[in-house]
């Protein structure tokens, strides 16, 4: 496809997703409180979008990933949260997530 064809096919869809990201950041800001590691990782990942490199998707995913190489001592909760908490820290399970039933994808 030519760049023009890519824009014709995907621009409106990408524009909608861009506005969604902007609205998400506005929503988080209006909510007050402090950024946790997820929002910090999200903001850092946004930097890759402005890069001229051709592998932005890979860089965003890698930037949100656990960079360590050794297996953890235990699994902790069953659910991933989308960003690496740093060191060996895991998000403690919320009261709703305690017990055996976990609403997470298989």
């Amino acid at each position, binding site marked *: *496809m030519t760049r023009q064809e890519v824009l014709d*096919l*995907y621009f409106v869809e990408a524009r909608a997703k861009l506005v969604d990201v902007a609205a998400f950041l506005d929503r988080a800001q209006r909510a007050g409180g402090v950024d946790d590691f997820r929002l910090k990782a999200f903001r850092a990942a946004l930097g890759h979008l402005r890069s001229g490199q051709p*592998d932005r*998707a*890979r860089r965003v*995913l*890698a930037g*949100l*990933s*656990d*960079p*360590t*190489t050794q*297996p*953890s*001592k*235990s*699994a*902790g*909760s*069953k*659910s*991933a*949260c*989308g*960003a*690496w908490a740093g060191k060996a820290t*895991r998000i403690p399970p919320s009261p709703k997530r305690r017990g*055996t*039933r*976990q*609403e*997470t*994808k*298989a």
Partner: protein
Amino acid sequence: MRFIEPHAHMVSRTTDDYLALATAGCEAVCEPAFWAGFDRGSAEGFRDYFCQLTEHEPRRAAKFGLPHFAWLCFNPKESEDLKLAGEVIALIPEFLDRPNVLGIGEIGLNRNSRNELKVFEQQVDLAARCRQLILVHTPHLEDKLKGTRLIVDAIKSDRRINPARVIIDHVEEHTIELALDAGFWAGITLYPESKCTAARAIDMMEIYGMERLWLNSACDWGVSVPLAVPRAALEMRRRGHSAAAVDRLLHGNPLQFLGQSLKFKLTQD
């Protein structure tokens, strides 16, 4: 068009989904063993599940003209319980000769823990001893990159395993090369929220080629779309890919991988 759904958890779906798949051109569904959404309490619970996958579900699929195939394993989400894992792995060989069983899967990692890795290696060993194909689940979100590296290293260290008989599933842009460069097959899972969209999947196909690649819906009890694979065909066609290319990716490729099991037969064969 015709396609094969190589990864779908049909026990979680309704008969309407079977009807939709058959109507859209699906020629076979393949169902890996997975987590039920809660931890099972005993090995007998798994025995019942394996019976469901090898007896009941094929009959349900047959009502819609669909051959149903299964993969068996102990899911990584339950692998912190090493005693239960051992009991379940011990009963899997009883089921491997059943006519719709293709191999061991979906084994893998969830949170990349030591016990998960230990259970994963036990099941790779089982597959090697019983000469079974392997279907690998890679972890979610921030755990995927590290988990994929651990998985690839673990399988490569077992010289009995031919990488051409292993598919590393749920790859994304940061893990697809790890699978393909090591000689494995790679599966892309099409989900509305996590994993991968059809557009990104076709991007990866255009970048890396369609050799040793399949697409699947991995539809289950969560947010997922049973018709994600034929919808990806529409994505290919609107970019100008030929009908032959669509057929190769969505039918020929899964047929090539799954056909390594002599049990994998389509209805018209």
